[in-house]
């Protein structure tokens, strides 16, 4: 019996890595990304435009929509190089457009919607935000109540969304509304494209405990949307539309963040000279290696077939590792040190990491999901 042939980084992949590294080194912005407000919008659009012009935008998007249809292995290599040079975090104002709204329009949008929106997202002309959560619908998203009343060719929206990152600087919003009166849970919801400059929309930024005001509350008072331009994936079919790209989001969109965290932990471990902290850093190093092993293997599996349920395991592992890493950083550097200060220092990372086990479904809800959907445990009475 012989071992299977190896497909370790071959010449073509090594050349791709070199190409990515050269481009990134020559092109990464010379100043750090602002965290919120109009200056953040300018920065993100400029960087997106630069990647687009250099042929590095939409790596995961199909080439017919302006992307590069790269393999998962190439994406991993790109993100490894991206993290190595310290390029701007992908979790910025372009994240929703590139990783969520864009792929949803690709999967479920009309030809006109694709032709209008996709080039704007890729080339850095438009910023998108997400309007899913509501004050009464956090982890329990299906309880959402923002209303869309159909009147002729229009939908008239009334209600309120919250935790809508960058809504104050966004051009469009992917918005979930209840369009079937009296419907409950996952039924009767519609996924719509909502331009943020329409009359009746009010945005209020919410300052977070980490400093920036990137989250927003959005209020809708008789906001009118033309149905044919706005609805994606069919009327009252919004839950399915929102789920269409969930696998995508959980699979490769998070790769950049995971690789970025592995890189941050490595830097911490190299900086550690305190013998009392060394055991914690050693464990974090091992945990980072495990995160990498799990996310690469999951991403590769998503490429060749339907990924298993382990995506939810990896997501929670990532969230808690991000918190533990920044917790160790606070002890390693101490308050007042240059490593903690500044927009992108560890103080920000530490405080911001508290959102990791809350956003997108709290860690408690994630554990319920793992227990029930992955392990087959019964739901409580």
């Amino acid at each position, binding site marked *: *019996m012989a071992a299977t042939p190896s497909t*370790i980084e071959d010449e073509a992949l090594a050349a791709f890595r070199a190409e990515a590294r050269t481009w990134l080194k020559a092109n990464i912005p010379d100043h750090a990304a602002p965290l919120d407000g109009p200056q953040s919008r300018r920065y993100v659009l400029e960087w997106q435009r630069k990647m687009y012009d250099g042929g590095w935008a939409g790596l995961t998007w199909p080439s017919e929509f302006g992307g590069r249809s790269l393999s998962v292995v190439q994406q991993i290599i790109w993100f490894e190089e991206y993290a190595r040079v310290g390029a701007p975090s992908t979790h910025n104002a372009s994240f929703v457009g590139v990783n969520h709204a864009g792929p949803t329009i690709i999967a479920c949008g009309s030809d006109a919607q694709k032709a209008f929106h996709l080039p704007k997202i890729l080339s850095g002309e438009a910023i998108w935000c997400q309007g899913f959560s509501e004050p009464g619908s956090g982890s329990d998203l299906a309880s959402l109540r923002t209303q869309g009343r159909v009147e002729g060719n229009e939908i008239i929206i009334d209600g309120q969304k919250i935790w809508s990152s960058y809504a104050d600087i966004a051009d469009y919003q992917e918005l979930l509304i209840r369009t079937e009166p009296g419907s409950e849970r996952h039924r009767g919801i519609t996924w719509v494209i909502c331009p943020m400059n329409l009359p009746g929309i009010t945005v209020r930024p919410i300052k977070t405990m980490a400093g920036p005001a990137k989250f927003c509350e959005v209020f809708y008072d008789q906001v009118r949307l033309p149905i044919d331009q706005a609805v994606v994936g069919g009327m009252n079919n919004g839950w399915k539309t929102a789920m269409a790209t969930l696998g995508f989001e959980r699979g490769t969109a998070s790769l950049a963040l995971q690789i970025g965290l592995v890189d941050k932990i490595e830097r911490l471990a190299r900086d550690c000279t305190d013998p009392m902290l060394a055991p914690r850093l050693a464990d974090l190093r091992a945990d980072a290696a495990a995160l990498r*092993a799990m996310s690469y*293997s999951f991403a590769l599996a998503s490429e060749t077939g339907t990924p298993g349920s382990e995506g939810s395991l990896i997501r929670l592992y990532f969230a808690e590792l991000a918190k533990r890493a920044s917790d160790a950083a606070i002890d390693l550097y101490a308050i007042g040190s240059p490593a903690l200060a500044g927009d992108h220092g560890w103080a920000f990372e530490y405080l911001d990491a508290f959102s990791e086990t809350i956003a997108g479904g709290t860690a408690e809800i994630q554990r319920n999901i793992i227990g029930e959907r992955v*392990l087959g445990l*019964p739901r409580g009475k």
Partner: protein
Amino acid sequence: MTIFRSLGDVHELVDSFTRPVRTILPVSRLRDDPDGEQNRWQAIVELGWLGISVPEEAGGIGLSAIEEVLAAQSFGRQLISTNYPATVIAAHAFHKAGDGDAVRALLAGEARAAFALQGNARGARSAIDAEGATYLVALTGKGIEICTSGSLEINDDVHWGRTIFSTPANEPLLLDASPDTAIRSRLLIAALLAGIATECCERGVEYAKVREQFGQPIGAFQAVKHHCADMAIMAHAAKELTTSAALAFTEGHAEAGREADAALNLALRAARHNAGKNIQVHGGMGFSAECDAHLYLKAAHLLDAACGGLSESRRRLMNYS
């Protein structure tokens, strides 16, 4: 560190030759027939499990460390004797030293190895399950030390589910200081521990589905469900990292040693975490010796002792630049 390879076909191959493990090594044997391990050794020998990654010309199956690691994950779930990793490691060390006779004797079941532990006072050392073993294998900072087994005195046959002996510290017969054998040893032990973590998770989950209190299965309660979710995460992490580290080693990756140390560190924590949670989920029964839950915890500790422990793994991990 980037290694990409789909392992679907390898999993299939390994499943095909490890399938009998549940019949040959039911965990219940450790309750019902604690002296029966000797008889089961013959089956392990005949199935070729001792030489999975020993080259064919030396009497092994000739597969890679990947197959060895995946197989060990299944063996770990059945709490295979610690003589198993000790003998496999000895076979690799003797093979490296060019001692073909010793390799053949180990693979044929004519000789067997047990783990010797470090750190005993006054020149004595401890050994696990060393009765009838030809060799004692110690994983030390210098490398793999092998010596012939000497006189044995029972040190503890109460607490660890296996017998711990005291034995004089004999002069080593062989010191294998190669990074290769050290990495193989760490991968093998990490894989056994990952198997323990996986089995504990499955057993805890199964119990949580059937044990009812307050009119419903205890797994419906979030506090119990969340323990189960944590076990699933740790088991998955240990399995994936161990497998990826074996892949890195097989591919000759420059960072294979570091990856193996990370895998061992994680697997040590995962096995102990899951063994403890499994006992907790089993409640009062979990604390009784009539339930198998304690056996996994004890097995995890013995492998921990054999490889130098968590602290040693942390020290090594922090030595990488």
